[in-house]
């Protein structure tokens, strides 16, 4: 077969392209193969120095643990007084505190700190804990920790490694342990909000390597970490993506080893090629603002609470992931009571009858962050409410505008997430919509006294019998006032390269990398 000059030119171009691609491929493969080799070496050597892990995320990064309880990755920099296992149980594991001893009257606890060093090289001391507690009690500088620390009257450094924490009143051990789980160790001289915003200062498993806002964050192994031999990874890099689909595409193309906190919608597509890890997650609730009509009508709120089809929301919005809840307690919580799902669950006839009796207006607008799964949950609620003659409009907003309106108490109703309340039901009062004071964004100064009393009782019940009664009373008042109606748990989702093991989340839904190998 003869070849024309034009074909000849085409062939030579193809050959050139082929050669170019081969060279590019070889150049790209060399470091990749090197990285793989590093990983396998680590695997055979029992995990010490198991290489580098690159995780992609769309979350904004923030380093101050006193100001966030959301799924932002600050955990790796800090040691907390105790840890909880990642299996969802609440058996305290010594961490920053080596041991702790409660006074017989439950009015104080004495903490013995572990001999450990901060990333700066300074020793962890009792004075750091005392300074931290002082900051934690100020809602202006420690929003996340203020309510969980409310039971503390004073903290005293007994010696360099011993702290006595005195309570305002006898306090249940579970609440104190939950506080210890949330309390990070930070050197007193660096425990300043403005400084921590840019630079973490803990004693956790990883140190800050490099941080380029909105681009990448590199964590490097802390050789002085108290748990000898851990973490297994030498380095963890977080890469920031503005779009979740771009993040998943990066995972599929191999440019990141894992995608953190992705939507359920990706699970079907990724499940056969990647390891999917479900985190403990949070809860989604339907909030009704009792300061704005028609939701100032309690009976109307109760009526709408019966029009939430949890099963359908879980199936169609959450892709079958998660469990139904009624009040703001997740299944591991001692206050989780599934009986409410039967007695107060989805029943449009009951909702219609109650709505009729309420005599309230039959129209409201729900605010929501545009593009979030809450839009679909609200559409299901909207369709059901329409059947009983209640018109719910949905007004999607840009996320920043939505959050501003939510915190300013300007939304009539919404679907929003709440963090896990751990093993202390009184921690329900941490959320802005659940605060027991006038800062509560759904009641302002009209927070129901029965709720305030129920939270206080749940936070002070010492015996199992009293606790059972207090939790039942708290559930009762939540059902009665019906401003925060549980929809479902919302586990977080991670998709990881199948070589990665040991990545999990703690009960707060923070990523735990201490046991991770890649």
């Amino acid at each position, binding site marked *: 077969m003869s070849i024309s000059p034009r074909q000849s030119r085409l062939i030579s171009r193809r050959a050139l392209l082929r050669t170019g691609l081969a060279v590019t491929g070889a150049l790209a493969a060399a470091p990749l193969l090197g990285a793989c080799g590093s990983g396998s070496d680590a695997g055979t050597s029992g995990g010490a120095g198991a290489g580098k892990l690159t995780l992609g995320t769309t979350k904004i990064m923030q380093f101050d643990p006193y100001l966030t309880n959301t799924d932002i990755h600050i955990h790796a920099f800090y040691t907390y007084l105790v840890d909880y296992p990642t299996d969802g149980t609440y058996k305290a594991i010594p961490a920053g505190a080596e041991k702790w001893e409660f006074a017989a009257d439950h009015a104080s606890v004495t903490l013995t700190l572990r001999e450990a060093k901060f990333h700066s090289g300074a020793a962890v001391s009792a004075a750091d804990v005392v300074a931290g507690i002082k900051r934690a009690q100020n809602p202006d500088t420690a929003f996340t920790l203020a309510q969980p620390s409310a039971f503390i009257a004073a903290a005293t450094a007994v010696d360099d490694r011993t702290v006595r924490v005195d309570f305002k009143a006898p306090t249940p051990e579970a609440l104190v342990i939950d506080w210890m789980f949330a309390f990070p160790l930070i050197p007193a001289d660096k425990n300043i909000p403005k400084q921590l915003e840019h630079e973490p200062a803990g004693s956790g498993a990883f140190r800050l390597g490099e941080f380029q806002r909105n681009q990448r964050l590199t964590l490097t192994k802390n050789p002085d970490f108290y748990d000898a031999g851990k973490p297994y990874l030498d380095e963890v890099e977080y890469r920031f993506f503005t779009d979740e689909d771009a993040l998943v595409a990066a995972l599929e193309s191999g440019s990141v080893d894992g995608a953190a906190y992705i*939507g359920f919608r990706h699970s079907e597509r990724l499940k056969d090629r990647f390891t999917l890890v479900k985190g403990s997650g949070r809860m989604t609730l339907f909030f009704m603002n009792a300061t704005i009509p028609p939701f100032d009508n309690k009976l109307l709120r109760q009526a709408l609470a019966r029009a939430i089809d949890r099963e359908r929301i879980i199936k*169609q919005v959450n892709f079958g992931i998660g469990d139904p809840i009624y009040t703001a307690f997740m299944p591991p919580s001692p206050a989780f009571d599934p009986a409410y799902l039967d007695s107060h669950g989805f029943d449009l006839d009951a909702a219609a009858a109650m709505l009729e009796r309420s005599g309230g207006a039959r129209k409201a607008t729900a605010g929501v962050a545009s*593009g979030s799964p809450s839009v679909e949950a609200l*559409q299901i609620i909207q*369709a059901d409410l329409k059947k009983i003659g209640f018109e719910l409009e*949905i*007004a999607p*907003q*840009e996320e920043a505008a939505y959050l501003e309106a939510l915190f300013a108490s300007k939304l009539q109703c919404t679907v929003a997430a709440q963090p896990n309340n751990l093993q202390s039901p009184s921690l329900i009062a941490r959320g802005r919509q659940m605060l027991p004071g006038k800062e509560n964004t759904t009641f302002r100064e009209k927070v129901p006294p029965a709720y305030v009393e129920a939270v206080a009782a749940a936070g002070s019940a010492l015996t199992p019998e009293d606790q059972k009664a207090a939790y039942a009373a708290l559930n009762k008042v939540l059902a009665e006032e019906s401003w925060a109606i549980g929809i479902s748990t919302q586990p977080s989702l991670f998709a990881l390269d199948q070589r990665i093991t040991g990545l999990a989340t703690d009960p707060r839904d923070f990523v735990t990398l201490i046991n991770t190998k890649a």
Partner: protein
Amino acid sequence: MSAPSAGAPAVAPQRRRMAAARRFARSRSAVVGAVGLATLAVMALLAPIVAPFDPAAQGGEPLLGPSGTYWLGTDQLGRDIVSRMIHGARGSLLVAAGAAAVGAGIGVPLGLVAGYLGRWADAVAMRVVDLLLAVPGILLALVIIAVLGPGRLNLILAIGIGAIPEFARLTRVATLEVRERDFVLAARGMGASTPDTMTRTVLPNVLGPVMVQFVITASMAVVIEAGLSFLGLGTPPPAPSWGGMLQDARSYLYQSPTYGLFPGICLAATVFFLERIGRGLQLAVGGGGPRAARGIGRGAV
């Protein structure tokens, strides 16, 4: 020199219009565009009759494929995709026409005043236009939606305001040319007031390019509306919109690959029809051949 007869300017535009209509009808692609758009418009107008289901009714199983009951399947909430597409056409065409009308309604008088009066009026009007031009259209629309909130009327305003500069500049240029023509001078000489001359003599003679711009703006508005709906800032749910459907479909590409296909086709077809009409109009009012019309509508596509 004898004064021009009062009837002359009235007869000339009528003849020109007839000639333009003939030229438009001779352009096969323009007719295809017009027929396609008319079909969509009729479908949109008769949506409650034509659509097999209520577009908001969550009656079916989610993400069903095409079947005898649900011709194009159902979406993630069990709603009929055909019905949502038909009702979505309503929103898209309404926003397109409304936004173009807002742009023309403000931009044309602004350009007319600037072009006819000149001097300080021209300077002020053009600086206002420059200000609007300094902000990209989609960004301006996003800001306006963020301030006013989502909703069809706000969408129309947001997109329409962004279209004002094109109308104003186009009208100004055409007015500058027309205001020196004999029939305008004659009208002035016969004692017609400035507003009268502007509205009854100049305006009808600059409407040709404005019509073309109207169609181009409408096609751009369809795309911007879809873009804003795609970002979740368009028509609030459960009202259907093609952009919103595309956004939803993106989440279910794996489970229902055909879901996003049909709203995408509708969107592309509408822009194609409008672009064809725009080219045909350019050909008709400009009097040039198909070559002259080729540049029109590219920005929108």
